[in-house]
């Protein structure tokens, strides 16, 4: 499975078209709307997480480009607030790629950002919200909104 987050800027003539429906239906790509700001007959902005096979995601992106949508990839970055983390290990049960893991000899919970895919599963599982996610350059507050905001 290929999961990527993109920042889309829709020209105003696309705002009344069923673009997302097309992406899902025709390209078989799962869409997770992280942020949407679309008004009829105005330029719209959306942050979408696309998930599917790599080929399908590529096709969906070229379809959108063909409509004049400008696309920017947002790299998700995840970091751990080591002050807040109390080394419980709950997050290691959900991290699919062992970016969060336990060093068995002393049961220390290690975080390896290089392995992290930015899936975000640890964020709400951590009971002290020590895992923070960012899109692009800006960090968003895990205590605040569930949906990331890049305009803050």
């Amino acid at each position, binding site marked *: 499975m290929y999961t990527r987050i993109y920042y889309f800027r829709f020209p105003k003539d696309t705002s009344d078209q069923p673009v997302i429906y097309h992406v899902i239906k025709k390209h078989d790509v799962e869409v997770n709307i992280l942020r949407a700001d679309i008004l009829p007959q105005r330029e719209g902005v959306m942050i979408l997480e696309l998930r599917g096979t790599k080929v399908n995601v590529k096709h969906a992106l070229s379809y959108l480009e063909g409509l004049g949508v400008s696309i920017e990839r947002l790299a998700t970055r995840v970091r751990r607030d080591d002050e807040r983390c109390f080394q*419980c290990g709950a997050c290691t049960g959900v991290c699919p790629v062992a970016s969060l893991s336990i060093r068995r000899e002393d*049961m220390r919970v290690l975080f390896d950002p290089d392995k992290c895919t930015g899936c975000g599963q640890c964020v709400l599982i951590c009971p002290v919200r020590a895992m923070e996610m960012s899109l692009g350059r800006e960090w968003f507050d895990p205590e605040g909104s569930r949906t990331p905001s890049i305009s803050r």
Partner: protein
Amino acid sequence: MTRKTTEKTYAEINARIKAGKAVVVTAEEMVTIVREEGAEAAAQRIDVVTTGTFAPMCSSGAFLNFRQSVPTIKASQVWFNKVPAYGGLAAVDAYLGATEPCEDDPLNKVYPGEFKYGGGHVIEDLLKGKTILLEAKAYGTDCYAARKMKREVTLADLPHALLCNPRNGYQNYNCAVNLSDKVVYTYMGMLKPHCRNATYCSAGELSPLLNDPLYRTIGIGTRIFLGGGIGYVTWHGTQHNPGAPRGDNGVPRRPAGTLMVQGDLHQMQAAWLKGLSILGYGCSLAVGLGIPIPMLNAEIAAATGVSDEDIYTQVVDYGNDYTNNIARTYGEVSYAELKSGAIVVNGVTVSTAPLSSVVKAREIAEILKDWIGQGRFLLHEPAQLLPGPQ
């Protein structure tokens, strides 16, 4: 043939602590000591074994007394940062429970709920020195005329703040799995359907009550590490069940004993009391607790030599059984297996994740060891031991 058997008293051990001569080790270190030297020699050489645990403990909270305002008030409804506290006490006393969510929390209406802020978070914020909004309502009396009150307070403004946890330090706890076909969000964390993960919550060989399985030293009046300060065991905890089945070593194979603990919040630190948001379940408090065990004799020393291999617990289904109160187990696993990262349930390998911090439990045991080593912490003989097995 005469064999010298060690019998020490609290007074002798305290005299050695005061003289800076006490030999103190952690429960983890004691495992090897007992294995290599035997219980008798260990009892003779070691004076105190320190234990620790740092984990979610829902049955926690604080009695908070706030100063009167003018006109005076007999507060019957009380909120701290919009988290309701129980006000059915005297005029300016309230009990703030750790699991009480903020009044406008959407709870599980948006499932699974995030439970961002609750009583546990207020306690942590007080310890951080943050300003808390205190609000109270009253019906008004001749001696307490005010009907409402609102002011900002910090911990320093509260003359009396007593952490008082009716059930902490569970002696052993279930290993949780989910045998249903949908994800469940529980106080044991998120459990995937069809038994695809397991969680557990005990410090194992470092855990206080697992090192004194038959309650030979821990009782009412035992002086402890609580939330970074000094506290006391003040009773056996609610749901204390000494009759739980035990192994030959006396260690219960299911949740058994519990402790009620109290201490002055003014002495405590935010690092050792953390507000928790448990997804889909609710708010809680992670409590740091450490108990010193005096090496009075070989039997007590032998018990503190317990290792993760000798401590077992039951695998319990939280998908269906737990909420329907069905007492059924899907096998017994040791903490050594749980800490290895995988156990076998119904013939299938399942990965495990802890909820209780071993790293912090060890740190607490080390802090307590330092306090005793420096002569800053003396042991207190209990007025009465906890109720034990019949």
